[in-house]
């Protein structure tokens, strides 16, 4: 008999051998009526699992604070790398006002440039041109949201889908093949290309799910390796004319998509915003329903929270893993399709994923694996992407700084006690 008032996982777990292969990777959760941060006796598996869960599903406040902190650290870096700031700092005791003016100009200049590049360019006169940055943000946000949904959905089943890149590449390649090899009317051509892309993404994700279900292979390792397989498969396809190669070209790039397979522009040809963003919004709604209102989503969450109880309740854990990874792959596939048929319809190339496959992980983490959170995080990262270019162009601040800020967000999300300590929030002991 164990006392339930002390949170030692061991005391709740009788000795038992893992009952199947996938049980090994997913230890039961910490029992906790009183969940203490100072629990010294948690096993490493429990630790890593609960950390993963905390990162993937903590509260929204932590996300906001992490963004805030990251932007602050970003400001420090902008200031530190700014030439004027450094010059004025050398005589700061003589004339401190120079230093602070330079500091202000560097930081406010950077962020106002980002605002101009991401949301509203108040310098221009033409309203259409003024609002153009916002449409760019939405354009960039589309695939990030789709990818974030794919990673986030897998998180809900406690699966870490690092294979976004491979899933996007394979899906993009397949959709691209349909896009330029076939001649069909648009009503058939575009949906067909989208569906084939999603199908290949689902296939690529499903491999990882199936291997985990059948053999217990860890999805992190499998998806990482499938990224390489996908990359080199696409590379191979780009060297064969019957697949993706442009006849007569030496570059690994396919011919441009036929007009019948290109996602139409939402606001006319003035803006680059295409229907990929609309697909992303639809996907947010569908995934929300799937997670919160469907039986499949219920089972996915049950498996993610406690695979043992799910199994004892008649839920086929292995099949759920496979299905989740297929849906996740399809969503990332849709992100790849979005690139090939929308953002860069000039042809399939090896960099079509534009690192979205990995950014999607950040988006899913920041969005706490919830569809609406992912929507918000995707928009934020879309704004970073759109604004980063303007920042570089007008303020001569490296666009890499945006990447630093993005990475810092994840870092702060991964260390909730750090954020809590900085803001002196109470520890999440009792909920």
């Amino acid at each position, binding site marked *: *008999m*164990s*006392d*339930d*008032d*002390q949170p*030692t996982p*061991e*005391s*709740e*777990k*009788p*000795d*038992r*051998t*893992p*009952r*199947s292969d996938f049980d090994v990777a997913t230890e*039961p*959760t910490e*029992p*906790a*009526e*009183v*969940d*203490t941060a*100072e629990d*010294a006796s948690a096993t490493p598996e429990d630790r890593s699992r609960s950390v993963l*869960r905390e990162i993937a599903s903590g509260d929204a406040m932590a996300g906001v604070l992490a963004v805030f902190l990251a932007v602050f650290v970003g400001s420090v870096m902008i200031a530190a790398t700014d030439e004027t700031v450094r010059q004025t700092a050398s005589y700061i005791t003589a004339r401190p006002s120079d230093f602070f003016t330079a500091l202000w100009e560097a930081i406010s200049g950077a962020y106002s440039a980002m605002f101009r590049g991401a949301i509203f360019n108040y310098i221009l006169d033409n309203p259409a041109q003024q609002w153009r940055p916002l449409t760019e943000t939405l354009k960039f946000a589309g695939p990030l949201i789709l990818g974030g949904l794919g990673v986030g959905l897998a998180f809900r089943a406690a699966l870490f889908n690092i294979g976004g890149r491979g899933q996007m590449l394979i899906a993009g390649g397949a959709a691209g093949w349909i896009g330029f090899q076939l001649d069909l009317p648009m009503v058939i051509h575009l949906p067909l290309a989208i569906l084939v892309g999603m199908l290949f993404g689902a296939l690529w994700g499903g491999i990882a799910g199936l291997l985990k279900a059948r053999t217990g292979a860890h999805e992190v390792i499998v998806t990482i390796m499938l990224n390489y397989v996908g990359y080199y498969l696409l590379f191979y396809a780009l060297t064969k004319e019957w697949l993706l190669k442009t006849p007569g070209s030496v570059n690994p790039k396919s011919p441009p998509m036929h007009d019948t397979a290109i996602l139409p522009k939402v606001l006319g040809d003035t803006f680059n915003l295409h229907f990929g963003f609309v697909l992303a919004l639809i996907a947010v709604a569908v995934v929300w329903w799937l997670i919160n*209102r*469907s*039986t*499949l989503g*219920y*089972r996915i*969450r*049950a498996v993610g*929270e*406690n695979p*043992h*109880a*799910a*199994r*004892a*309740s*008649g*839920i*086929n854990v292995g099949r759920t893993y496979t299905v989740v990874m297929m849906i996740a792959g399809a969503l990332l596939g849709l992100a790849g399709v979005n690139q090939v048929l929308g953002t860069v319809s000039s042809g399939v190339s090896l960099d079509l994923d534009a690192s979205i496959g990995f950014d999607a992980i950040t988006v899913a983490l920041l969005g706490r694996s919830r569809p609406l959170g992912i929507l918000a995080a995707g928009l934020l990262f879309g704004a970073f992407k759109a604004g980063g270019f303007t920042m570089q162009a007008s303020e001569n601040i490296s666009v890499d700084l945006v990447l630093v800020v993005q990475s810092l967000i994840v870092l702060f999300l991964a260390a909730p006690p750090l954020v809590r300590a900085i803001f002196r929030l*109470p520890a999440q*002991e*009792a*909920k």
Partner: protein
Amino acid sequence: MRLVLRGITKRFGSVVANDSISLTVEPGEIHCLLGENGAGKSTLMNVLYGLYKADEGEIELDGVVQHFTGPGDAMAAGIGMVHQHFMLIPVFTVAENVMLGNESTGFAGNLDLDAARDRVTEISDRFGFAVRPEAVVEDLPVGVQQRVEIIKALSRDAELLVFDEPTAVLTPQETDELMDIMRQLKEAGKAIVFITHKLREVREVADRITVIRHGKVVGEADPQASNAELASMMVGRPVELVVQKAAPTLGEEAFVVKDLRVVDAAGHTQVDGISFTIRAGEVLAVAGVQGNGQTELTEAIMGLQDDTSGSITLDGIELVGKSVRKVLDSGVGFIPEDRQVDGLVPGFTIAENLMLNRSFRSPFVKNGALRIGALRAFAQQKLTEYDVRARDIDSLAANLSGGNQQKVVVARELSRDLRLLVAAQPTRGVDVGSIEFIHKQVVATRDSGIPVLVVSTELDEVVALADRIMVLYRGQIVGIVPADTPRETLGLMMTGERPTDLKDVAV
């Protein structure tokens, strides 16, 4: 050593686990801490052992106020803890385990194993433990492993020994031996804190009894007090300790197990060719020390064990080889032995947990979508019916106490159309009040004409619920005996010995 705890208060967020607890333990005294699960006994001991820091109050040893920052300080001050789950390394010898964390070394860090062996022999001889220092811990019986833990504490000159629910894993015989050891230690002048919720043990060894409820000391009890008095102090109201039940109305042989054999993932045979029958309207209780095949037996019935041979039939339908879902659909209700692992999804609400094994069909599912309205109405009704103490149906299962969590599991299983109930450790880690309630539900299920298989390592529970008792030892049936078999006989059977005059009772 004299221990005084003064006004110990420990909060976890808004939950007060210990509310100004004061306690004195004299040398040469066995002081029992009696309380339900979740009353705050273990938290208090973790404060004493330096694992938690008290928010208020002080710890005093022999008149000196202590400030422990970790178990190391507590050990150095002479406090030894015998944990419920042993902190031993199975592949090490007794001597190696005893010296672990306190190794004496010779030249260039050489381990001085001889000194450790001598120490073990010395302590073992002094108290008659009969433990060989060269024995490898994993080869020792559980009761002896516990003695190794005690030796480990004594080898560090512990003057105050804390036993945290030490009898949970022991057979009745081993429990008696532990009681003897505790008396010996007491005579040697050690102060002993004995944490338990088993009334029989308390009455046997305690010199003083402090009862804790909801994190507060409710008072001292007289060791001569009756079980009912102690129980009502623990729970705060009168409790029925004996399950009131009429003689069973037996139906046909509904549940038949033949030559069941279960091999686990490591290739060990855990259930070794057992056969038994349960009639409709009968409770067959499985007794035995934990780890003698009970877990595997229940999991095999549920389809959770992969390597199962033999036959399990329910109303003539074969269950072996069926998926868990098919078994559940055949009308088997399953209360798993560890609700935290197999019974509940801690991150789900009460409502969501109540539909866990009905995620495929009506009433909570329609065309692949959840019928949230139906689920919520159902959950609301069960919350009242099963007296689950929670804020509302949207409370997370993780935030419920053990007893309330178990009520959720019981409510889920009993509200389906059952043809068999398998209840493994139905009241483990459950407070006395909830035990009473759950036992009544099990008996009510039996009385509605359903065969019931109860597995319990608590002899009290087995005797209370059983119409017949089946004793398992190392995966085999020692015997199937009537419910009124004397405890001594059952205890003996749990060690694998079959009394010569024993007669199995037929169905």
